[in-house]
């Protein structure tokens, strides 16, 4: 007991040892901060890479090289996306669920891919699923069969047409699908052709191009354009996590519900007002006039846009007309079934008018023959009411068509599906950051912009290349935390960019067998979690490579042999960037480790001094019966306790420093004007501020062990002293 007691008492009273504790704490904190920031940076790079292009990337050195991408993706995932204009043709209730039938005019290239060849006699069937969207959100998935019927040549236009029919079940009530006020549309259909690779979870093609972005009359910026498929992309990367209007929505699309757009836009407007009020509340000499000007113009823009979005919903003439038409339809549908006859109604009205005359005359004549006439009149009136109340089916059909038309116009303005764009948050001029790192948007969803795209898919070298221009409406904005991407990227629907860059399929009119397939720039692949790292990821990449080689042999037209396909993992792609950072981390850790060794020597020196100071007391303890190993154990425990105290202090201090490192850096920049973390250089907005508990534990163990190591020799020295000598020591 005396060992424990004395050890604790010395820890409290011997202030010299506190220096050792402080030294250990400092070293622990130092190593923890350095290792955390580096590790955090590398893990941020990993997350950003996976957010940008999934786990494995299939690309070629040319931007327009990869063809037959949907079929190759079918090799990887087992599902092939069917690119055709499906229309909802029939809805039948089936119990609680509903059965649906779609019909589509198929385009040849998909039919032959799905059927296996161009000319086939018998219909081919594949299991398939379709994604139904309603009001901007995913309604559900239709699971059923896709039937591909053989080609029929249209005698008039001489066009080859296939029939693609998807019929399946959806577990939603039929009424939801047939509500004309809010129709559904089919976002995508996937046909299951096989099992795919074990390691692959999902894949999506991407088109990558450079273009000019034009906003308003005078703003032009060069941007990278990504043509992506939503929500497919959300399954491969975590694109949806950084969206503004649809944050984290797994069913994010290019057409968010208008209510959400208005909600987020007005929410942002309120934020901007708050920021402006905060800046104006400062005393005049502290105000940043430049910032206030920018905030004012952003607020004006947002105000105008929110008002416009609202007015589009509420007061737009088409919306008004739609409301009126809907009212009429409801009224018409409320009556009992039957066929209303305008002629009969007219005849009844005339009869009633004649009887009315009779009744009037009879009242004047006071003749008793008025009563049977009145009875007749009442019956006729009843009949008239019945006739008038009956639903006019013709009118109902006409109203439905009118409503469809009005909706079409309205949604054409709102929901031109191929004309939506998602901006990267951070394009200079379209948004900016306040000194407190808040993002302020000057262009919000609803804004109209234009893209000027070079048709990189055009064949042949031409001396005159005319760029394709198309207008888009901003639907959302996306933030990936990687500054170089966010400040120069916009996203548009895959099909839209394919058209703009002239990378769609081209088929010889006379011989449909001669085909240049539609192309894309890259294919992003996500692997299942079990294969997501290390050796297993490399094996997955090898499997994808093998699948590609096999595919290429069967489809040599998929890619031009001149431009080889490169398939690599995200880590290999970023190796040039990660490698130096990892080496830096190793080097800095070694340096700090060597410096930390100084703390061991410091503990040694301090403990040696303490032992020298306590020689007489050691003698006393020996004299009252303490043993030699007991003395050694006491000092070793003292050393370990120093390590424990130092590591607790150091870990706490280091943890809080790392946690609030961005605030500290902001304060430092404000105080000294010196910004340590340059966004452009270090890629991310914020310094990584997470502490890995495993690393903290290792550092703590190391600190305790260093206390033991430092105290070892002094402890042994204390224990081997002869008690008689010790007592006599002065």
């Amino acid at each position, binding site marked *: 007991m005396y060992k424990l007691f004395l050890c604790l008492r010395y820890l409290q009273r011997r202030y010299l040892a506190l220096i050792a504790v402080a030294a250990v704490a400092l070293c622990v904190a130092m190593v923890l901060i350095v290792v955390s920031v580096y*590790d955090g940076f590398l893990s941020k790079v990993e997350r950003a890479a996976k957010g940008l292009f999934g786990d494995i990337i299939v690309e070629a050195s040319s931007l327009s090289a990869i063809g037959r991408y949907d079929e190759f993706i079918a090799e990887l995932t087992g599902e092939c996306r069917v690119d055709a204009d499906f229309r909802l043709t029939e809805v039948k209730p089936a119990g609680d669920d509903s059965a649906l039938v779609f019909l589509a005019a198929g385009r040849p290239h998909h039919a032959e891919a799905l059927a296996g060849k161009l000319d086939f006699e018998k219909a081919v069937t594949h299991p398939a699923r379709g994604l139904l969207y309603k009001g901007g959100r995913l309604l559900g998935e239709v699971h059923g069969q896709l039937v591909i019927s053989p080609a029929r040549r249209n005698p008039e236009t001489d066009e080859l047409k296939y029939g693609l029919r998807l019929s399946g079940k959806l577990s939603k009530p039929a009424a939801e699908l047939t509500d004309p006020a809010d129709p559904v549309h089919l976002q995508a259909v996937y046909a299951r052709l096989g099992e795919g690779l074990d390691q692959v979870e999902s894949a999506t093609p991407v088109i990558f191009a450079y273009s000019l972005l034009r906003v308003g009359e005078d703003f032009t910026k060069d941007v990278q354009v990504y043509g992506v498929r939503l929500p497919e992309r959300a399954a491969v990367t975590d694109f949806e996590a950084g969206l503004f209007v649809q944050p984290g929505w797994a069913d994010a699309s290019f057409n968010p519900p208008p209510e959400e757009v208005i909600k987020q836009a007005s929410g942002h407007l309120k934020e901007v007002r708050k920021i402006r009020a905060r800046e104006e509340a400062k005393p005049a000499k502290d105000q940043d006039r430049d910032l206030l000007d920018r905030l004012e113009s952003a607020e004006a823009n947002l105000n105008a846009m929110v008002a416009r979005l609202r007015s589009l919903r509420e007061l737009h003439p088409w919306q008004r007309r739609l409301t009126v038409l809907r009212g009429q339809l409801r009224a018409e549908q409320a009556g009992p079934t039957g066929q209303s006859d305008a002629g009969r109604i007219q005849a009844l009205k005339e009869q009633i008018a004649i009887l009315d005359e009779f009744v009037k005359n009879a009242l004047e004549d006071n003749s008793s023959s008025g009563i049977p006439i009145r009875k007749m009149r009442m019956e006729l009136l009843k009949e008239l009411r019945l006739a008038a109340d009956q639903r006019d089916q013709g009118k109902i059909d006409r109203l439905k068509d009118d409503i469809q038309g009005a909706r079409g116009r309205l949604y054409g303005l709102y929901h031109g599906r191929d004309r939506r764009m998602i901006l990267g948050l951070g394009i200079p001029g379209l948004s900016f950051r306040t000194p407190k790192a808040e993002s302020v948007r000057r262009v919000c969803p609803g804004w109209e912009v234009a893209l000027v795209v070079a048709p990189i898919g055009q064949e042949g070298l031409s001396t005159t290349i005319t760029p394709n221009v198309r207008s888009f409406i901003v639907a959302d904005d996306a933030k990936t935390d990687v500054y170089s991407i966010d400040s120069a990227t916009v996203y548009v629907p895959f099909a839209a960019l394919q058209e703009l860059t002239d990378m769609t399929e081209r088929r010889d009119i006379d011989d449909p067998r001669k085909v240049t397939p539609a192309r894309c720039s890259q294919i992003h692949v996500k692997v299942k979690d079990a294969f997501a790292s290390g050796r297993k990821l490399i094996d997955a990449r090898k499997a994808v490579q093998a699948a590609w080689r096999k595919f290429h042999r069967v489809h040599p037209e998929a890619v031009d042999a001149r431009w080889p396909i490169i398939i690599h993992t995200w880590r290999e792609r970023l190796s040039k960037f990660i490698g130096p950072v990892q080496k830096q981390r190793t080097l800095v850790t070694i340096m700090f480790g060597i410096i930390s060794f100084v703390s061991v020597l410091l503990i040694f020196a301090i403990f040696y001094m303490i032992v020298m100071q306590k020689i007489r*007391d050691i003698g*006393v303890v*020996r004299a009252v*019966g303490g043993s*030699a190993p007991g003395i050694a154990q006491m000092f070793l425990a003292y050393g370990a306790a120093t390590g424990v105290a130092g590591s607790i202090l150091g870990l706490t201090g280091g943890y809080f420093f790392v946690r609030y490192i961005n605030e500290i850096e902001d304060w430092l920049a404000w105080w000294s004007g010196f910004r340590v973390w340059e966004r452009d250089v270090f890629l991310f907005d914020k310094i990584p501020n997470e502490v890995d508990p495993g690393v903290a534990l290792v550092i703590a163990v190391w600190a305790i062990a260093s206390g033991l190591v430092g105290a070892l020799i002094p402890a*042994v020295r204390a224990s081997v002293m002869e008690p008689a000598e010790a007592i006599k020591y002065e």
Partner: protein
Amino acid sequence: MSDVNPTLLLMLALFALAALIVWGLAIYVAGGLARRGRRPLWRWVLPAILPGPFLAGAAYLARCYRRCVIFWTLAQAASIAGVIAAAVIFLPGVLGIYVALDLLLLLAGLVVAFVPVLVLAALGPRPGPRVEAARDEPLIQAHGLHKSYNLGGRRLRVLRGVSLSIRRGEFVAVFGASGSGKSTLLHLLGLLDTADAGAVVLDGADTATFRPAERNHIRCQEIGFVLQFYHLLPELNVLENMLLPAMTSVGAWRWCGSRRAARQRAREILAKLGLADRVTHRPRQLSGGEQQRVAIARALMNSPKILLADEPTGNLDSRTGGQIMKLLKQLNQETEQTIIMVTHDQAVAHMATRMLHLRDGKLVAAGRDSLGE
């Protein structure tokens, strides 16, 4: 391997480096101690050359505690086996894995070595049975004690054959000039030191046969020391200084049970010596006389058979010194406490019941007293 955090491996490597350096120093220290002739070199160095660096130090400390020899052997075996396994299984990446395994072995060795040590320490020492001599036999005897020191290369012979015999209840004063070896004699009698030749017989048992643990135990339970400079621990208050002998005899586990009884006894003794109001004071807040009284109280804590006093009044003025001597006499007369005192002050020596004269390393009878052989 590419996914294993290289930082971790690096820190392990750094630690192994540090451990290697300390290991080297430990061997050097061991060698130095062996050269001083306290133990044969191989007993020091053999643990130090174990494959697991630093396990040596841990194993040595375990070995010090004799009951842990078996654990020491296990630790050695584990260390060797581990390194062989590492080399065999992980031949390609042997460097990185060896470092990691080294640390593991090191920690395992520390745990394996220290856990039983700590457990046994918590329980407290258990010495062997003691034989009590008959009441009229001498309590402590010395036969021809020789002791010499190394002083700058020359041997200084301090005691040249000292023999004495002391019975229970005697108050003996050993009187001699400064440097005549009286402190040395006291230390030999109190088992703080071992004689070059001769024997100290305590209660009929030859102390040369005692193992270190037994000697510690006797010093704790049966001998009380009072020293010239009081030798109170400055960080502890009076009560805690008193409790030190009680804490030495039990481990942390048993202390919980016996704490209250020990405190009670301490307060009683302090009250008897007139220090009841000084219980929470630190030594620096007490006068010389009070500190010496605390030292005496501490020496009496475990009811020792012998009280050894080395110049108890040497640092006090004559009045306070007289008080202390009166106290000692009172102890001897009332409780039959055997007291052996050494002093250079003849007046003080005369206050004892028996006086022995130490001159030129030999005891000579002085006046009315005999050597009591």
